[in-house]
């Protein structure tokens, strides 16, 4: 049953925290401790390097197709949609540059992270949830091994490392898609297209995008693992864990992006 909580200030002012809000704060607290435990276990031997590499393969390599197609279509459609509008102002030659800035700074990282959250966040949530339900996590615990290190640390490390690489891959294919659609409407060589596209791209565009993609990857991994690792007993909870992992990690991507944009606008 959902719990309410009474909070008092200076002994005189009291109010009751609604059950839903109380549960939300409790969950945030749990996730905070989960993150703390991740960093503690990350630096204590034994290091699960082999499993981390396997997870990089599962999380990274096996997502290449999905993020590649997504990136390609983003570049293609963004260019097709932009040319008619910019043609009105006679500025269609700026399309490659506009697409590159939009893709590298914002659309590439955010869309790829959302796709990644849907595929990897749900996958991790369902896999760990299923392991919890079938007592595999308990079996690791009682055999004197650390399931947290083997299951959580490896997956979070892999998703943190792999997402920035996937984003670069998606960005590159977005530019390929952009060139193909640009060439359909405006004739341009690949060389001149790339020169125009990258003339306004600098480190100030790439570095913040890379840093925020590392955070995206970390939070998608940690939320997926948290939901799966803390799934209740019962098959229904596997679905709930997968679903909640996608919802929370997608939301975290949007929130982190908003914070990142605010911070990067300062510099």
């Amino acid at each position, binding site marked *: 049953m959902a719990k309410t909580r009474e909070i008092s200030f200076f002994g005189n002012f009291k109010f009751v925290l609604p059950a839903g809000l109380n549960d939300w704060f409790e969950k945030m607290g749990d996730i905070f401790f989960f993150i703390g435990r991740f960093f503690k276990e990350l630096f204590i031997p*034994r290091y699960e390097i082999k499993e981390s590499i396997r997870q990089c393969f599962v999380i990274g390599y096996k997502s290449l197709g999905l993020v590649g197609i997504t990136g390609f279509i983003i570049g293609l459609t963004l260019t097709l949609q932009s040319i008619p509008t910019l043609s009105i102002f006679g500025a269609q030659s700026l399309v490659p540059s506009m697409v590159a800035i939009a893709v590298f700074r914002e659309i590439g990282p955010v869309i790829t992270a959302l796709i990644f959250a849907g595929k990897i966040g749900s996958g991790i949530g369902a896999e760990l949830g299923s*392991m919890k339900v*079938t*007592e*595999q996590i*308990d*079996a*690791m*615990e*009682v*055999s*004197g*091994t*650390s399931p947290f290190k*083997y299951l959580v640390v490896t997956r979070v490390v892999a998703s943190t490392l792999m997402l920035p690489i996937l984003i670069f891959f998606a960005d590159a294919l977005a530019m390929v898609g952009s060139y193909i659609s640009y060439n359909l409407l405006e004739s341009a060589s690949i060389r001149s297209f790339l020169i125009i596209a990258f003339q306004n791209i600098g480190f100030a565009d790439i570095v913040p995008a890379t840093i925020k993609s590392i955070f995206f990857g970390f939070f998608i991994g940690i939320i997926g693992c948290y939901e799966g690792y803390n799934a209740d007993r019962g098959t229904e909870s596997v679905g709930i864990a997968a679903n909640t992992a996608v919802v929370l990690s997608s939301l975290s991507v949007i929130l982190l992006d908003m914070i990142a944009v605010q911070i990067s606008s300062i510099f």
Partner: protein
Amino acid sequence: MDNQDKNIVLKISGLHKSFGSKVILDNVNLSLHKNETVVVLGRSGTGKSVILKCIVGLISPDSGTIEINGKDTKNLTGEDLSNFRCDVGFLFQSGALYDSMSVRENLEFPVIRQNNYNGEDVTSKVVEQLQNVSLADSIDKMPSELSGGMRKRIGLARTLMLNPDIILYDEPTTGLDTFTSKEISTLIVKMKEKYGVSSIVITHDMPCAKMIADRIVVLKDGKFVAQGTYDELSQSPDDFIRSFFSY
């Protein structure tokens, strides 16, 4: 300390556990002797599995002590906790095999992650334990390729990889046909004779209990209400206790 006390490998004293307002275990006391097999009987939902999970630390008791080989298991950390985990094996109801790993990897998994593991090849040990459960030819199979009985036997082999002094069996024959149940019961007896392990077995399978039990304890309303050999309890004047034996 008399001889009887020296032979105690597991001692549970005054164990209490509640979930919310529901009392599950109420002052449970139990001693397990070396090379002894104790069967716990009780109706479903009376807390038999909770006892096992308290012993291995998956559930924290509200109060009471659990001593393994004379050491209180409360507040164990680091190497002590790791050693304790090696001393006590747990066979889960479903076998709980890691389904992303082959049988070989399942058996190797706990061994190569122990603090004292020095990198030696554990294949011979894996094969030995698989031979114990007559499944040496399944070494490269995945859990999804195994039947329910085979999963439990592999689960037992994995438990034996750490050479435990005590093995806890959570309904080892549930969901199996009569023939396979008998095979598992025979294995439990064989492991006791071969490795001298002490065991606590939770089961509703009375032919299995008859075959493996040195002593049977009956759990009712969170307390052990009777204990004795199979023959003693089957003659009990108490209808509740006798009801387990009228199968």
